[in-house]
């Protein structure tokens, strides 16, 4: 126990020497905890996010991830014959809905997005309208890209569009939540060395992970195994959700381990 505590103190010292982070203050704040519970807490999490922001990120990610699980498990209780393969579109919609609602709620509660300059109702409304338009546009964009990748044009348009909606909810919605309907900020974040906060980095990671997941999900389709998950678009949507979950886990961990390298320019 005490060795863990010593390790942590050392770690904080090193940290504070390396950069002026809030790490030590976090430790001081957490002094009110009993040391024992505190260390248990560290071991339980394995990778510990001391920083306030990383902690917030980890917990919000945990909530989002659990919402995905709930969206998979809960309908199975209520709806007869619900399964991920059998009623795939239903599962897809439930995940989409859960992820969007939870994302919006979490980010609204956390108040991450840039503070708005004007606080009038009209301005808020216009932001809302623009956000909706972006969501729609992104659905269409994903649909086009998926069709360009070789999805049938007319035959299973509904399935393709559902996949596009899922991808939108996993990527674009998060962008909207974090950055707001601001294309220039988006371009900044997604260009090289453009991240300006941990949230930007986590956004990059989750978006990349979900897209790569969907991309990898397309590979098993040509195999002639005749499995239920090879049906369009099951493997792609599964891949994207798995990628998204991976991104949710990886983002805080990666940020934590690369704290030294991550130097953000001032906002």
């Amino acid at each position, binding site marked *: 126990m005490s060795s863990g505590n010593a390790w942590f103190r050392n770690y904080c010292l090193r940290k504070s020497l390396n950069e002026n982070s809030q790490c030590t203050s976090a430790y001081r704040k957490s002094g009110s905890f009993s040391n024992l519970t505190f260390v248990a807490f560290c071991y339980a999490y394995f990778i510990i996010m001391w920083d306030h922001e990383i902690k917030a990120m980890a917990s919000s990610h945990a909530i989002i991830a659990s919402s995905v699980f709930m969206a998979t498990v809960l309908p199975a209780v209520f709806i007869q014959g619900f399964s991920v393969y059998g009623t795939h579109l239903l599962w897809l919609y439930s995940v989409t809905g859960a992820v969007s609602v939870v994302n919006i709620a979490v980010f609204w509660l956390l108040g991450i997005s840039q503070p708005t300059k004007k606080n009038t109702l009209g301005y808020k409304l216009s932001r809302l309208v623009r956000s909706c338009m972006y969501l729609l546009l992104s659905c269409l964009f994903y649909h086009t890209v998926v069709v360009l990748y070789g999805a049938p044009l007319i035959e299973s348009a509904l399935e393709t569009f559902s996949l596009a909606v899922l991808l939108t909810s996993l990527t674009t919605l998060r962008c909207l939540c974090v950055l707001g309907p601001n294309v220039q900020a988006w*371009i900044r974040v997604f260009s090289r060395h453009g991240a300006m906060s941990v949230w930007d980095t986590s956004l990059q990671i989750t978006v990349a992970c979900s897209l790569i997941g969907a991309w990898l999900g397309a590979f098993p389709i040509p195999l002639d195994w005749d499995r239920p998950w090879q049906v369009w678009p099951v493997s792609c949507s599964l891949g994207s959700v798995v990628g998204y979950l991976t991104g949710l886990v990886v983002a805080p961990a990666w940020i934590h381990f690369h704290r030294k390298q991550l130097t953000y320019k001032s906002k």
Partner: protein
Amino acid sequence: MKIRTSVFTSFIMMAQVLGIALFLRGFFPVPVKSSVSAKNKLSDLPAEPLTGGPHNSSRLPDPLFKRVVIMLVDALREDFVFGPNGRGNMPYTSHLVERGSTHSFVAKARPPTVTMPRIKALTTGSIPGFIDVVMNLNSPALLEDNLLWQAQAAGKRMIFYGDDTWLRLFPKLFMERDGTTSFFVSDYTEVDNNVTRHLDSTLKRDDWDVLILHYLGLDHIGHVSGPRSPLVRPKLLEMDDVLKKIHGALVSKETEGAPPYLLVLCGDHGMSETGSHGGSSEPEVNTALVLVSPAFRRKVGMETPSVVEQVDLHPTLALALGLPISLNSVGRLIPAVVQEAPLRDRLRFLHLNGHQLSCLLGANWSVPSYREQTQIEVGVEQFRVAEKAHGGWMKLYLEGNTSEVLGNMGKKVLRQYLEALASMSSALSRQLGKYDMYSMVAGMVIVFQLLLVLLLAMPEALSGAALVDVPVLQALLSLPFYLLCLLLASVHVLVCTSAGSACYLCSLSWGLVFTAVAFASATFCVLVSMATRRLPGGGGGGGGGSGWSLSELDILLLAGTVGHTLSLAASSFVEEEHQTWYFLLNTLCLAVFQDVCRKYFREQRRPGAIGENREHHEEEEEEEERFFLSPKGRRPSDPSQPGGDPRSREKWLALATPPLTLACCRLLRTLNQTGVQWAHLPDMGHWLNSSEHRAVLSLLAALSLVLVYFLIQRRCSWVSRIALALGLVGVYSYRAAVGNVWFPWQHGSQSVSKGTVEARFVYVFVLGILFSGSKDLLRSQIAAAAAAAPLKRRGLWEIYSGLVLLVALLFRAHNLPVLCCCLLVQSLMARFIWRKLHYDAAQTTIMHYWFGQAFFYFQGNSNNIGTVDVSVGFVGLESYVEGPAIFLTALGTYAGPLLWACHLVCYLNSESLRTPVALGHGCYVLALLRSVPVAAYVVLVTALRYHLFIWSVFSPKLLYEAAHALLATVLCLFLGAMETAQADAARP
């Protein structure tokens, strides 16, 4: 020894092709046979078994049939006759099948389901090796023991009408013959009329014993428009009429007492859902086989036809005609056919067949694995037991015993014989897929060593100097080299003396073998010394190797190359390889799009230090661009472009290029549905080729040709431009003459010709443009340095446009948009992407290679032999001429990769003004891209050589890979020559 990268690469590639050839020689062995020219003789037949008593006669039972008519309908799929539509397609035949005295079977053909191997299988009863497909275009006379030779030796008179492949296989055996050539695929009436026209007179005569008819029309219809075409039904009705006519004539000739006739209706192979064949899918393999004879019991109702092997027809026919079975036959007698014969004869037939199979097994027993050995022994043992029981039965029979015991005992012997035949036959067909492992391993070792040398040289080869230090002399003078030589030579002697079986390397002369041994050991020494040099210092020898940072694009390119290589291990990924390439290409376009967006949008937002730097580059580049363009286009540099700010216009064009490319790829993808799983889906190509949409096809073809002209002409000299225009007009008129497209002024039915004149007209211009291009290239060698560059560039471009014209001639009309899109994408990418975004030679080469691969599949190819369009080999030729036909077919097949590689040469050449080593780098990367999958695939195929799909999926792919490696070698040589010329020009 320091040599230039391109020279080094070309040398490695040439050696690698030799290694691959050696591997192929081992992998596709000449099928192991008892002897090529040995024939089975009547006198060699075993005596009828009899326990005790004197030796019985070795005579054969009396022939069951006197006359045989074999009506072979090419691509007669099983469901054409037995399927739900069979009654409508072939009413008379289905009536016979249901009610007549017939036997009907589904005969399974072995892949490759191509005509010539199938004919060989039917006549010799053996399973021809895969290499027969490659020899299909040039079939020499069949020297093996075969049914026809036996029939002739027995004094049977034979008549043949139909596909002239038979005449090439059996040049002197027929009393009367008339061959039709099978290569004009678009002709499906004349080929069959040429066969049928002889029937009436022949059927009236009595002077023949065997009549063979081979009808090609159905296969041609399949190739042109698939099995669901409306043309299929009339053709099948025609075949039905022919069958009715023959049957009627045979029935009327029938006399009491004499042995009856036998009419065989069979197909050589089936037809896939797209109408091609060659692979091993169910519809390609299952063929109909109907035997009609009054000797059979009359049937009372429809029975489901039982399944037999196609090779089983051979021993059945041979025995039923009283001929010896061919030595190499692996088939077994179809018991149903001899059902009505006396039991003694039936047992004798089975005995003869079993004896022949056991002899063949004995001859082929060289080094089988333990499991096979036991299986063979089991089969032979079963046969011995049955033979003994047969002897006992004969003794009882000859003693005049006629009790029921005898009948039961005979049935038991019969069953024993059938079991023995089944196990021997299966052991044999496994035996036939034997590999020459020694040659394979030798080839593999060479290929791998060269690949490793290539990989180890990477830091030097891609460095700024592009010089590779190959320690050849050092290796040749070292002690390990000599020791290794000695070791390998002794291994060689050991292997050759111990195996003794057919081994290609052992049959080579000593000089050649020693050269190979020396080469392998030298490569190994070079490899080791390069590796040791690379190991300790790391960056010491290579220089600049450590500082590489990979962008997303680089990661994608690397991951794609590696991933594709790995995917070759799965048979489905090989079958659907086009999907992999389309997928990677799409991702590549998206990655490029992201790069473009990043460049143009970020620049605007942040005019910081980097931005200014970029601006600076941009201006330089603009100047260079003008410098490049002005001599190319032969027009004054246009300072004022019409409409708006040129910079912003260019930006939008650059932004639009990747989406446009994506859209093009998506459209082309629908043009030709290839692969296996989704090949049957309707595609644009079939839609365009159907006769109702000929106007659309004509319009599309014309539009594509016009676009091709505009895309290609801008960098040619004016003479070539005129030649190009005339050539493209010639292409269109060739397609019109062949009957694919219409001229606007001739809407009615015009006569279809071969279009030889038009095609030759185009050839003249192709040669003209190629000549003018090479003249420019040669002139650039002697011209002054300043004038040389534009001359060379123009020469290269003209050679490229000559190739484009040739490809336009060879492509089918519905594939012309592929060519057009190819050129469009090339010019857009070169103009707005590769040059503007500063992609280096390696990246550009990889992108070209990917595009080339994707276009290979866009034009309708697949990893199946069946999709090779052999009709391309006859464009502009009156008859089959081997050299040009093979060249044109290869060119037509590899048009996509070739055009992209040629464009790469042009692009890198223009780029080499800026970075002089671009050509060398491109050459190296191209070689690496080709040899990595080849080397991996060679190992994979060796590991999977007993895989179920080895012949149907993996071997065709191996042939494709080998051919592609050959093509890449030629291109590397060309690139190397270009670079050498350039370096020579730069030196003085």
